């Protein structure tokens, strides 16, 4: 695998790992500040995902007096699956943003923002209905 895309007269970029060459090919190194900002955003999503995971586990254990079992388990599993998707999606998004920055392309839209907002509103509505009807 050759890495001779840089124009002549400029310094060769420092060697990168094989995984980095495969998953983040081409382009040029973005401003290091952007790389760090992308990483912090990724970590913020990971913490959100952890909150969903902890919430899912707590919901199942905590609400046995409030919900019938299928609703309880269903909501817990929805939260856990959303936490999983968010963790995986955060890494995917980090990769796509990093690729866009390498190629100086527009940043991708965060597709899971509306998804997360919708699911959050739905969960809150279900809880509200159950609390009111209890």
């Amino acid at each position, binding site marked *: 695998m050759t890495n001779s895309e840089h124009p002549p007269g400029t310094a060769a970029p420092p060697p990168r790992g094989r995984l*980095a060459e495969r998953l983040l090919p081409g382009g040029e190194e973005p401003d290091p500040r952007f*790389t760090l900002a992308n990483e912090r955003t990724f970590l913020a999503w990971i*913490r959100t995902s952890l909150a969903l995971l902890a919430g899912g586990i707590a919901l199942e*254990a905590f609400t046995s007096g409030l919900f019938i079992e299928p609703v309880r*388990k269903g909501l817990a599993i929805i939260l856990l699956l959303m936490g999983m998707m968010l963790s995986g999606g955060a890494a995917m998004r980090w990769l796509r943003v990093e690729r866009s920055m390498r190629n100086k392309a527009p940043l991708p839209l965060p597709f899971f923002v509306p998804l997360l907002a919708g699911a959050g509103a739905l969960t809150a509505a279900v809880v509200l209905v159950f609390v009111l009807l209890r």
Partner: protein
Amino acid sequence: MASGAPRPHGDPGLQPERTALAWGRTMLALVTASAFFLRWLPTYGPPILMLPAVSGAAALAIYLTQRRRYRARSHGLAGESIEADLSAVLWTAFAGVVLGALGVVVVVTG
């Protein structure tokens, strides 16, 4: 604030510090989640212990690499070149996915 740029990287936006703090927050969130999972041991029984094992290991891994990461980043920024930390991102996301999968198993079987 004293004049002159902070050392050793000279970045007035303190990017390496902010990124190290973001990792630190994530580590604390993992520790909190571990304690939280342990809290439900009486409800779920021993299978729930798989979760704090994963989240605790992830927190420990971050703790043990913090110093090295900060050092690499602050020196990298001084030379205007930081390599994206692909493996840290992938491992962290993997831990989240595994936690979710184990959680589903525990909820379904519990």
